[in-house]
C-alpha cells in the first residue's frame, strides 16, 4: 500500500493559513521587541552615549595632532561628525519611524552590531553585521546545546517505549524519579556545581570556556580546507576535535543530564497511551509477533507526538540557553543575547530574537506538513 499524497485544495488552504498565522506571529514578536527597545527610548539613550564616546575620541585625536588644528576647525569637524552619526543611527527621525525602520531592517537582517562587546563574544573585530555574528556563534550553540539535545532525544526515543512496556518496574520508577529530580533542579545550578566540582576542585575540565572560540573557528577552517579536497587537513581536524571535546564534554553532559529526564518522561507518556489502547492489546492477543505489533501499531502512532517535541525542542535549542551559556561563559547564541542586552545593543537583540523565532516558526510549519503526511484524518 503506497501512501498516495493527495494534495488537494483544502490541504493547501490549511497549510497556507498556518503559514500566514505563523508569519504574523513572527512579525508581532519582532515588532514587540522593537517597541521595547526603541519605543521606550532606551535605544536613543544608548546610541547617544555611543555618539558621545566617539566624538570624545575624535576630539582627543584632533587635539593631539601636530600642529594642532585651530579650535574653530576642531569644533566644525566635531559638529559635522556628530550630525553624520545622528543621521547614521537615525536619531533625527521620529520614534515611530525608527521602530518601523528597525523592524523592516530586522526582517532582512540588514543590521549591524553597535557594541564592541558583542563583537568580542563573536571573537571578531567590529564592524560586525548581525547576520554574520549569528553565523559565527550558532555553531557553538549547536555544539553545546543542540548536540546534547540530540543525544537526549535519541536516548528518550529508544528508552521511552521500552519502559512504557515495563510500567511500574524498578527501572520505570527510577526513571520517573530521575525526571522529577532534574525537573526540580535549575539547569544553570547544575552547571554551576559541575564547574565548581569538575573545573576547580577535581580539575578534570576547564574552568573557563571562552577559549572554545579558537577551537570552533579553527575546526571550521580545517573543515573548509578538507571540503576543498585537501586531505592534509585531516590531522589538524583531529587535533581540533580533541581540544573541542575537552572544552565541550562538561557542558554537553550537563545539558544532556538536565534535559534527558523530561524527554524520557514525555516519550514514555506518549508510548503508554498507545500500548494500553485496545487495538494494541487485540493485535497482541491474536498472536502477532511483538516486533510487528511495535512496528505497525505503536511506532506509527507515537511517531507524530514524538516528532513534535523533538523538532520543537531542536528548534528551541538553536536559540541557546541564555543562563546556562552565561554560567559556562560559553559564547553561543544565548550568551550573545545576554551580552547584547547588557550593553543595550539593540540591532543584535533584534536580530537574535528574529532568527530564533524564525527557526521556531519554520519548525512549527514543518510539523504541520508532517501531520498532513502522517495523519490521514487531516487529508479527509
Amino acid at each position: 500500500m503506497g501512501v498516495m499524497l493527495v494534495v488537494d485544495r483544502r490541504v493547501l488552504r490549511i497549510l497556507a493559513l498556518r503559514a500566514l498565522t505563523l508569519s504574523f506571529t513572527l512579525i508581532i514578536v519582532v515588532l514587540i521587541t522593537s517597541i521595547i527597545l526603541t519605543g521606550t527610548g532606551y535605544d536613543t539613550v544608548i546610541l547617544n552615549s555611543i555618539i558621545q564616546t566617539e566624538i570624545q575620541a575624535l576630539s582627543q585625536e584632533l587635539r593631539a595632532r601636530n600642529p594642532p588644528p585651530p579650535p574653530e576647525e576642531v569644533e566644525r569637524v566635531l559638529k559635522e561628525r556628530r550630525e553624520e552619526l545622528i543621521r547614521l543611527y537615525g536619531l533625527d527621525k521620529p520614534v515611530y519611524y525608527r521602530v518601523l525602520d528597525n523592524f523592516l531592517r530586522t526582517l532582512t537582517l540588514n543590521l549591524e552590531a553597535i557594541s564592541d562587546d558583542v563583537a568580542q563574544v563573536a571573537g571578531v573585530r567590529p564592524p560586525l553585521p548581525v547576520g554574520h555574528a549569528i553565523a559565527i556563534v550558532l555553531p557553538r550553540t549547536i555544539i553545546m546545546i543542540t548536540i546534547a539535545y540530540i543525544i537526549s532525544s535519541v536516548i528518550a526515543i529508544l528508552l521511552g517505549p521500552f519502559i512504557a512496556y515495563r510500567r511500574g518496574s524498578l527501572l520505570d520508577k527510577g526513571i520517573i524519579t530521575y525526571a522529577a529530580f532534574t525537573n526540580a533542579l535549575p539547569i544553570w545550578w547544575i552547571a554551576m556545581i559541575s564547574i565548581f566540582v569538575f573545573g576547580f576542585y577535581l580539575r578534570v575540565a576547564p574552568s573557563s570556556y571562552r577559549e572554545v572560540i579558537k577551537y570552533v573557528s579553527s575546526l571550521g577552517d580545517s573543515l573548509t580546507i578538507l571540503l576543498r579536497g585537501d586531505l592534509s587537513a585531516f590531522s589538524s581536524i583531529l587535533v581540533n576535535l580533541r581540544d573541542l571535546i575537552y572544552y565541550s564534554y562538561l557542558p554537553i553532559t550537563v545539558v544532556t543530564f538536565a534535559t534527558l529526564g523530561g524527554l524520557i518522561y514525555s516519550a514514555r507518556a506518549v508510548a503508554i497511551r498507545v500500548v494500553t489502547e485496545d487495538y494494541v492489546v487485540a493485535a497482541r492477543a491474536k498472536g502477532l509477533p511483538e516486533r510487528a505489533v511495535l512496528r505497525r501499531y505503536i511506532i506509527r502512532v507515537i511517531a507524530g507526538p514524538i516528532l513534535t517535541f523533538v523538532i520543537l525542542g531542536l528548534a528551541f535549542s538553536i536559540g541557546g540557553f541564555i543562563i546556562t551559556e552565561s554560567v559556562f561563559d560559553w559564547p553561543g547564541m544565548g550568551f550573545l543575547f545576554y551580552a547584547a542586552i547588557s550593553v543595550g545593543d539593540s540591532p543584535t537583540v533584534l536580530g537574535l530574537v528574529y532568527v530564533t523565532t524564525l527557526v521556531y516558526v519554520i519548525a512549527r510549519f514543518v510539523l504541520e506538513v508532517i501531520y498532513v503526511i502522517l495523519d490521514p484524518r487531516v487529508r479527509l
Partner: protein
Amino acid sequence: MSKRGLRDSLVRGLIASLHSTLTEVGRSSLGKIALALVLFFIVVSIYALIALPRDIADRWNNIVSTPWIYYPKGAPPTWIKYFGYDEVDSMIAPLQSPERYIVVTEAHIQSNLPEYVKAIGVKGLKPVGYVEKYIVEYEHRSSKAPNDIILAFEPRPMSDLQGKTLVNIIFLIERPDGRVIEVLEEPPIPLTRLTPESPLKASDNKYCRVFLSDYEREFNITGVPAEDLCRLSIKAFFGSPKVVEGSLHFDTLKGRYKFILIVAYSIPGLRPDDVRAEIVRGNIGFKGMNLIVVGTVFGLLGTDLYGRDLTLGILFGFPVAIAIGFMAAVISVLIGLVVGVISGYYGGRVDEVIQRFIDLLNSIPILPILILIGYIVQDPKSPVFVSSGWGRLLLIITLIAILGWGGLAIVVRSMALSIKSEQYVEAAKAIGASSTRIIFRHIVPQIVPYAVAVLVLSVPGAVLTEAALNIIGIRHGLPTWGLILSDAFSARGSAYWMWWWILPPGILLALLSFTFVALGFTLETMVEPRLRRR
C-alpha cells in the same frame, strides 16, 4: 438569585472543594510529603517575616554595614566542627559593667599611686581621666587562631559634652602562658569617632608597632621581617612563634585567655570625678560596647565572601520565593480561567480571536523578553527606569504571569465546551438562566479544582525564572536564593570551595519546586478522573 447568594454559594463550593481536596491529598503518600513540605515552607516564611529585622534588605545590599563587618568572611557553618574539623567559634561578648574603675589625674600619676597600679595593674600603662577596665575570659580550644578580634562601640546620642569627650583605648591579651601582649592602643580620640560602622580591629596594620615591641621583647625572634609578624598578628597573639626554614609559624596556645580592655574618658577642662558622674548619669559615654572574637566558622549556614550571614539571607528568601511563586501563579491562573471560560462558553468569533492570541502568546520567547525588559527597567540611564526594587520585582512577576496563562486557557476552554453541552446546562438555559449564572454556577465550580492543581503546579516556575534572571544580573535588591547564588557565581574562582554558599540556595529552590510539583501532581491525578466522569 441575588448576586450575594451567587457569591456565597461560590465561596461555599470553594471551601468544600478545598476541604475534600486536602483530605484526599493526605491519603496518598506523595501528597503527605508534599503537604508537610508546604507546611514547612509556610512556617519558615512566617518565622522569617516575624524574626528578621525590617531593614534586612538594605543591610544585605550594603556589604560594609553592620553586622556583616563583625563576621568572618567566607566562613563555613559552625556544625562542621562535629565532623571533626578543628575550627574557632565566633563569639560576641557585650561589655556591660567594668571589672574595676579608677579616677586618675596627672598628680596621681606623678606620685605613682599604688592603688592605680593595683586597679589597672598591667604593664605600667598610665591612661589619665576616668579609667574603666573590662575583662573577658575566653577559653580557646582550637589549634587554629581566630580570624580577628573586633572592638565595636556604640556612642550615646550626641550632645555638647559628648562631643568634647575624648577616649583613650588600650587592649591587651593575657595568654595561658602568662604573657601579656598589648594588642592595640588608641591615643585620646574624640569618642564620637567610634561608631558601630568603624570598629577597632586587632588585625589592623596600624597597631603593628604597638604589639611588635612587646612581642619581640617576649619572644626574641630574629631573622624574620617585621612585616611578616604584622601580617600574621592575630596568629601571633594566640601562639608561640617558631621559625622554620626562614618562614614564620605559630603554635596556637589552647587554654584560658583574658581579654583586657581599658577605656579612659577625659573631657578637657573637666575633673575626672565629674566625667565619671556624667557617665554614671548616662549623659555621655557608650550605649554599648562589644568584644567580638571573629572565628573561622559562623552560624547555621556560614557566611559569604563579604561576611554576610547566609542564614539570614536564606531565611529571607523563603517568604520572597513563596510570594513570587504564588503571585505569579494566581495572576496567570485567574487570567487563564477567565479567558478559557469566555472562549469556551461564548465560542464563535470571540473564541477564534482568543485562540489565535494564545497561539501568538505561546510563540513569544518568554525568557529573552523578560531579560530585555528586566534590563531596561533597571538601567538608571533608561527612560523607563523603575527605581524601586519592589516595583521591578512586581513588574517581573506580572510579566511572568501575563506571558504564562496560555496553556491553562486552552484546557479550560475545552472543559467549558464539554460542560456547556451537558443536559443540565441546556435545561438551565431553557428555564431562562443568565449566562453569568450558568458560568458561575455550573461551569466555574467544576473547573476550579483543576485550576487549583495548575496553580500549585505553576508556583515553582515563576520562582525558578526569577532566580534565573538574578543569575544574569537582573536585580531587585531583595535577598533571594537566586541573588545569593548570583553573588556566588560572580565570585567564581573564589567561591568554588564555598559549598555552603552554593548548595543551600540551589537545594531549597529544588525542594520548593519538588514540593509544589508533587502537590500539584497529587491534586491533578485526583482531579482528572473526576473530570473524565463528567
